[in-house]
């Protein structure tokens, strides 16, 4: 029996239970890594939201039973750390070009579930035209954008989605519209394009939003499988390193500073004609 921290106002046991062996009289409800992530170890910073988002995406693929026919196209960014860890086929694209590479794949192999994983800097700054034109052409792919408002991998500067007031390395007092311009809402931009089947924005700042985001990704892949055209899911993720805040404050910072501009929800859902 050990006391490890001050006890708050609520009634709390101070007993620390053993957590090094699996119990015998219990069912496993969540494993360390989902089936489609081979290696859980990665070099991303403490408190990063991207592994949580990628877990949600891989869980959604497993739910739909698409593991054997799915192919991921990774852009360049922190999320590229996972391009070697997944138990699905992976292609590596150049900066911002993932939707174009995915276009090539889906045109040659239309039966596949092709999806891209990009950050907001990759998709929004380096290759916005790629995803917009892929959407307008109605390419039958799923595009996932992990949005933290920061170029995490290349130094921490602001991106096109950085919200007003958000801290990054070169907006350390918060983004100011007079100095730094206004943020773009990529999901809304894509939702207005004909040829798009499904557009939604999720977040991973708490367990409820993770579950909701997982359902959005399931819907996106279901729409892709129904042949409704491009599906787009933007996932708001935490970057405490890029925001210069403690890791435990990042979920609330996301809810207060970023979700106000980038509202979570389903923006477009086309019904299949079948």
């Amino acid at each position, binding site marked *: 029996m050990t006391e490890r921290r001050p006890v708050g106002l609520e009634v709390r046991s101070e007993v620390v*239970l053993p957590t090094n062996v699996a119990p015998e009289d219990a069912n496993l409800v969540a494993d360390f890594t989902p089936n489609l992530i081979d290696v859980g170890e990665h070099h991303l910073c403490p408190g990063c939201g991207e592994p949580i988002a990628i877990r949600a995406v891989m869980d959604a693929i497993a739910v739909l039973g698409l593991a054997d026919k799915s192919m991921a196209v990774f852009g360049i960014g922190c999320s590229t750390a996972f391009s070697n860890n997944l138990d699905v086929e992976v292609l590596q694209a150049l900066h911002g070009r993932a939707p174009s590479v995915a276009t090539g794949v889906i045109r040659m192999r239309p039966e596949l579930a092709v999806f891209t994983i990009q950050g907001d800097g990759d998709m929004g700054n380096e290759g916005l035209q790629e995803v917009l034109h892929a959407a307008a052409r109605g390419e039958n792919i799923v595009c996932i954008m992990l949005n933290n408002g920061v170029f995490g991998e290349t130094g921490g500067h602001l991106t096109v989605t950085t919200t007003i007031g958000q801290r990054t390395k070169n907006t350390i007092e918060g983004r100011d519209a007079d100095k730094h311009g206004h943020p773009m809402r990529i999901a809304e931009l894509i939702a207005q394009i004909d040829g798009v089947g499904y557009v939604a924005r999720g977040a991973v700042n708490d367990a409820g939003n993770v579950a909701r985001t997982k359902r959005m990704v399931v819907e996106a892949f279901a729409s892709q499988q129904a042949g409704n055209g491009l599906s787009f899911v933007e996932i708001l993720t935490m970057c405490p390193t890029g925001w210069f805040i403690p890791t435990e404050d990042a979920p609330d910072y996301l809810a207060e500073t970023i979700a106000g501009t980038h509202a979570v929800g389903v923006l477009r859902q086309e019904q299949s004609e079948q």
Partner: protein
Amino acid sequence: MNAKSASGIVVRGTVVIDVEACKGCDLCIEACHPDVLAMTTDMTNTRGYRYPELLVGCTGCRACADVCPDFCFQVFRFNEPKTWTSEGGLQ
């Protein structure tokens, strides 16, 4: 808050924690609805990070596993709920 019965604290689940994989980000502490995860204050893993420990009252809700960026949690739900008392421990 822990679910309490007349005879003690109800424990419906438990977790196995991969302490060495933890980077001490505290996200699980915020996510835990029954508030039964606590970061160590006096111990770290071999990489120097504090890590979470399990107190009595887990419900097996898997919120910790869903929000952990480093995949540190394996969540179990007991076949039959157990009761923890200060005299008899977990039974």
